């Protein structure tokens, strides 16, 4: 398969980037469906959304926002480093990005666990007792942060692969489009969080 592939053509840098941007667009549309649900339910249950939002921990939310934004910085720095032939530095920045990603997920884990501990999770008697609006709010909260979390996880796996490739030397200043595309993906996941944070944590 590899032999056949290498025959095809030299790597098309612009083509790869274009394909990646279109893929990111599909990801965005996936989240658009959920944001659509959010806007419908928020306009229907304004009061309840405000009340439910005040029960989320703004501290953890803010902390996670800072973590993800920083991880985007380290991601960009790692691409920058590999362009300048500094593979080791790039590797360190990739590792840092992975670390921030895991840090984010750990926070999310504790946040979710605390809520679940209080009996607030989809279909739980505790949540249903809170009424329709809060059921929708927490439903969306678990759904959207959950799917976002899965995307962070996917990004981490992607970056771990990139680290192996960088170490092997197959990513370098001549061929770094795969790292750049992984970076684009990481930034997208970050941007989605930038929208998730206010719509869940800052509306009370």
């Amino acid at each position, binding site marked *: *398969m590899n*032999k*056949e*592939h290498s*025959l*095809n*053509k030299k790597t*098309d840098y*612009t*083509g790869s980037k*274009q*394909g990646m941007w*279109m*893929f990111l*667009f*599909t*990801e*965005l*549309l*996936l*989240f*658009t*469906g*959920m944001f*659509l*649900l959010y806007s*419908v*339910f928020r306009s*229907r*249950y304004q009061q309840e959304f405000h009340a439910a939002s005040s029960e989320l921990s703004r501290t953890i939310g803010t902390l996670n926002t800072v973590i993800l934004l920083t991880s985007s910085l380290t991601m960009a720095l790692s691409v920058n480093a590999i362009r300048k032939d500094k593979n080791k530095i790039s590797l360190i920045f990739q590792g840092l990005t992975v670390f921030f990603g895991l840090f984010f997920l750990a926070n999310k884990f504790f946040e979710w666990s605390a809520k679940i501990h209080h009996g607030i999770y*989809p*279909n739980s008697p505790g949540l*249903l007792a809170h*009424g*329709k*609006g809060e*059921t*929708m709010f927490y*439903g*969306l909260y*678990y*759904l959207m942060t959950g*799917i976002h979390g899965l995307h962070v996880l996917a990004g981490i796996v992607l970056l771990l692969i990139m680290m192996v490739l960088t170490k092997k030397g197959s990513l370098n200043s001549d061929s770094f489009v795969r790292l750049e595309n992984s970076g684009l993906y990481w930034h997208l996941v970050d941007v989605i969080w930038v929208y998730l944070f206010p719509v869940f944590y800052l509306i009370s």
Partner: protein
Amino acid sequence: MTGAQREMSFYESGNGHTGILSWVLSTDHKRIGLLYLFSMFSFFFVAVILGLLMRLELIAPGPSIMTAESYNAMFTVHGVIMIFLFIIPGIPAGLGNFMLPLQIGARDMAFPRINLMSWWFYMTGAIVIIVSLFTGGGPPDTGWTFYVPYSIRTGTNVTLAVFGVFLLGISSTLTGLNLVTTIHRLRAPGLKWFRMPLFVWSLYATGWVQILATPVLGITLLLLMMERLFGFGFFDPARGGDPLLFEHLFWIYSHPAVYIMILPAMGIVTEIIPVFARRTIFGYKAIAFSSLSIASVGYLVWGHHMFTSGMSDISRVIFSFLTFIVAVPSGIKVFNWIASMYKGSIKLSSPLLFTVSFIFLFSLGGLTGLIIGALATNIFVHGTYFIVAHFHYMMFGGTAFAFFAGIHYWFPKIFGKMYREKPAITSCIVLFAGFNVLYFPMFILGLEGMPRRYYDYLPRFHTGHLISTVGSWILAAGLMIMFYNLIRSIFIGEVAGSNPWGGSTLEWTTSSPPPHENFTEIPVVTEGPYRFRK
């Protein structure tokens, strides 16, 4: 495939693997296209048999051969297979995959490995759907639209089937991404945008619809699965949700999806007409732009599936108006096709015969679509056989007939062999006759008030149902003749030259079947398509 300098075709030149592995691990767009074609037609046959059994059940009032439960499962599985496993991947992933690089003078698609991956997603999705039929609570019985609340409450194996369709969605998105990038990046030197064959234009529009619509289906199906597994309640009014939201999300994808099905079909028709009328296409740019405008306006009409579901009058009027607008570019195409044939030296070979059948059936389907798109008449025929008839005129009479036309047209290129013309013509005539006998009575049944998806009916509908069932047998006979003729010719057909039809697009300049990387030398294009010598 003639002469001493005949090149090794892609069937013969190896790719490091042998036997079945040389297919399922190949990144060659031609092999992947064939993988798609063969897997799709296998599923197509299963769904045809389900359809025949349904028609047989409806031959007379009262139970005939199956229970009401199995009837529900059958129309669901028939729909799921036909829509998601056959007609959506159909032309873009099958013929499109095979022909696109050949038509633009490229060696392969832009992302050969993603291309292979999309086939694997397709197969995995298909297997998951098949598994869902025999495990858990049995085959899903919700209809292919998976409408809530029933799809959340039914005990049948909806979760797994929906997961299968989700995987098919990923496959379709990847195909679209590949089509668009390939057209942007890999056109041969000199092949400017307005020199591209119109099939390529239609694939371009299709690719964008696949990219921009399929993710919405993804999230809709994901929500349905989550709903069944965790009970979020988004679609359950008792918990604050709203079932209408599901319908909106579903049709935001599924309406553009009908353009994934029909646009490439229109592209095939546009390829065939000039070749067999020996004239250049009439209104090249109009056809190219009408593909793009169908693709873009097609996003904004999903509400016409929900006229009776509960929407404000204003939105219904807007959706109805846009539905009429989207019919305009299709009309433009039909007139252009007819005008292209005018005063041409027409040779009515089997590809053109299928194409002309397409134009007739598609026009009938399109015009009845306007009856459904108008608010007043919609309320009268909504949920009746009229919808079923319209839908099959578009999807079977439209897309599938054009698909068959394309298979006949490109058969010599794909296999290097020629099929026998007489059985091909016969099969087309039998198919056309059987199709109309099968589906035309449904228009009348629908106007008389026969509801769709019903297992049983009042005696006064008997005649229509009986005629329709007889039509299904004629149609099946047509399919058998056609596939027998084609499959036989793969093995013992006469050798076809590289350009048996005298086509003028790039795929006819290379040998049949094409060599491993399509062209020995990348062609240079100096003029637009469809130029024929007098």
